[in-house]
């Protein structure tokens, strides 16, 4: 189907089903129960899952396939956001022109930065991209204030021209009249599910982005990118000019980042320079490595994981901890809460950092490798219970398929 083989079609269908069912899957705990704060099925967070999923999928095309580690991808995220908000200011609140401009401008910007940065490889490439992104961030704060509105951030004002607006147009962001904020709440078995149009809009684009990356992974172009990662010398002596291949990967991943930036602005019509800062570039690197660089699903998993931590673990404060451990004797309760409070609330990044270290040390292939190991273990256990020897079945080798 759609030019994919049987396994890839299955993978795509699973991704579609999971994405469509996210508002239900992320709301497993009943409202008012002690676990309710682990529910993640609210629109704002789900939109972020989809948007940062797109960002990480795009980043993986560069880093996962070619091995070129860019520390400047947040610049494209910022360019995407600014372009989209400008379209809101000049035309109307319809997100389509903004998203198109975001992809085009971030692509052009990536072409420029990539053309220069790809003259070097390894750490020098990373430093060059980092320098460019920090330059963009500082310029957005200072000399480009007329374009970016500096520290305040770019936003839509009533005085903006908005040439395509008329009396009937929506004043919030929309897609041909369907408002991004439109939500339908459904109560079922004590759980409140929110079906938000903005999320589904991002989700459909994320699925398209995933499908495109799947096609790139399986294409001769994707094969050349993987060859760049393993041996550039041989590739050169095989008649391949590696630079345009790496540049194409850089531009494609820049466009993905621009699209993600545009979507961020489409969900909340505001663009600030901090979106271009290096911490944001670092986050996408973490997402990709945590999930599994070079795998199809890894970056999406990583993005979901980090956004979940950032939004859910950060909400757990000492009061909540005391509630959880109130059954303990007082002294012990205080001690446990004292230890744990470092890891939740404002300390969520400590938990994430620890987790990241564990993954890098024990699962260099990321969460995807963890999943594969569990699957292999289950298969061995099943084989044993069937009375077969474990050696009968060929072992799983991690490939780009997983």
């Amino acid at each position: 189907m759609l030019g994919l083989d049987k396994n890839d079609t299955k993978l795509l269908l699973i991704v579609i089903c999971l994405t469509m069912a996210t508002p239900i899957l992320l709301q497993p705990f009943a409202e008012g129960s002690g676990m309710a704060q682990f529910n993640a099925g609210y629109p704002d967070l789900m939109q972020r899952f989809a948007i940062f999923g797109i960002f990480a999928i795009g980043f993986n095309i560069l880093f996962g396939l070619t091995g070129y580690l860019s520390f400047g991808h947040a610049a494209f995220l910022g360019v995407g956001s600014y372009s989209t908000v400008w379209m809101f200011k000049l035309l109307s609140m319809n997100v389509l022109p903004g998203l198109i401009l975001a992809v085009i401008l971030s692509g052009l910007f990536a072409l420029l930065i990539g053309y220069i940065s790809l003259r070097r490889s390894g750490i020098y490439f990373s430093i060059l991209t980092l320098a460019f992104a920090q330059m963009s961030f500082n310029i957005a704060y200072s000399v480009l204030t007329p374009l970016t509105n500096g520290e305040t951030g770019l936003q839509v004002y009533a005085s903006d021209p908005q040439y395509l607006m008329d009396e009937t147009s929506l004043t919030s962001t929309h897609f041909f009249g369907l408002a991004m904020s439109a939500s339908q709440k459904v109560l079922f078995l004590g759980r409140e599910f929110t079906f938000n149009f903005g999320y589904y809009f991002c989700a459909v684009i994320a699925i398209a982005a995933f499908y495109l990356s799947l096609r790139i992974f399986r294409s001769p172009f994707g094969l050349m990118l993987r060859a760049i990662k393993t041996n550039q010398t041989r590739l050169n002596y095989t008649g391949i000019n590696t630079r345009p291949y790496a540049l194409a990967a850089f531009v494609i991943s820049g466009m993905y980042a621009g699209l993600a930036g545009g979507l961020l602005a489409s969900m909340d019509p505001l663009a600030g320079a901090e979106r271009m800062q290096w911490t944001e570039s670092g986050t996408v690197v973490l997402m990709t490595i945590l999930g599994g660089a070079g795998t199809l699903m890894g970056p999406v998993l990583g993005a979901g994981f980090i956004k979940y931590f950032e939004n859910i673990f950060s909400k757990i404060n000492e009061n909540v901890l005391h509630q959880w451990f109130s059954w303990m004797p007082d002294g012990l309760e205080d001690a446990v809460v004292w230890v744990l409070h470092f890891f939740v609330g404002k300390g969520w990044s400590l938990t994430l950092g620890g987790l990241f270290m564990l993954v890098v040390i024990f699962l260099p292939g990321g969460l995807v490798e963890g999943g594969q190991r569990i699957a292999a273990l289950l298969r061995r256990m099943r084989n044993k219970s069937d009375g077969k020897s474990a050696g009968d079945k060929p072992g799983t080798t991690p490939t780009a398929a997983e």
Partner: protein
Amino acid sequence: MGILEVRNVSKRFGGLKALDDVNLTIEEGTVHAIIGPNGAGKSTLLNCFVGKLIPDAGTVMFNGHSLLGQKPHKINQLGVSRVFQTPEIFSGLSVFENVIIPCFAKRDGSFRLHAIETVANEVDMVEKAEQMLIDVNMQDKRHMNAASLSRGDKRRLEMAMCLAQDPRLLLLDEPTAGMARADTNNTIDLLKQIQDSRNITMVIIEHDMHVVFSLAERITVLAQGTPIAEDIPANIKGHPKVQEAYLGGAHSGA
């Protein structure tokens, strides 16, 4: 005129004269070995053929094109393939993927953005790659990760990768370096088989006299950056200058 013409090539590294006015003609369809003691300039000469080094003086013409100052990928696209001293393969990829990459490079040139087609659907390329693996007798290893191959198999794979491009000139830099005798003999057989079935021009740089005399139709002997003799193998063995510079002593029995 030969397929590869080297005229008055000199190369210095600081005070060291690595190549001194080298003239060499490689005839199309022959297996030509370049031998010489360590430091004679063999590898320097080879690197001048593939664009890795630019000579200080002289010309290198391949099939009417100057190779001087050309990028390695351009030289390869002209029809020159190279086998390295340590096999250069795509270690992270499968054996099959290793062989299909040069097939694409041959068909599509140095760059093509074919990002939507699927590799598996490129039937012609898949068949060609499969055939190459059969030719080097590695079809049963097609799904293996290239990194896990033995040294001898890596060499076979690298040959298959070069041959997949139907090169006009194949450069081999010590193809049997570091190999056990059995692997060396297998490599000799493979090269003989390639020579018989494809009639590719080959330039071999080699230390192992067993390999040189098993394969070469013509031999050039380099010493201190200058060719001191060039002839058919039978005459090289008895050449007094060569005996003095290279084959004397322990090597003469080879």
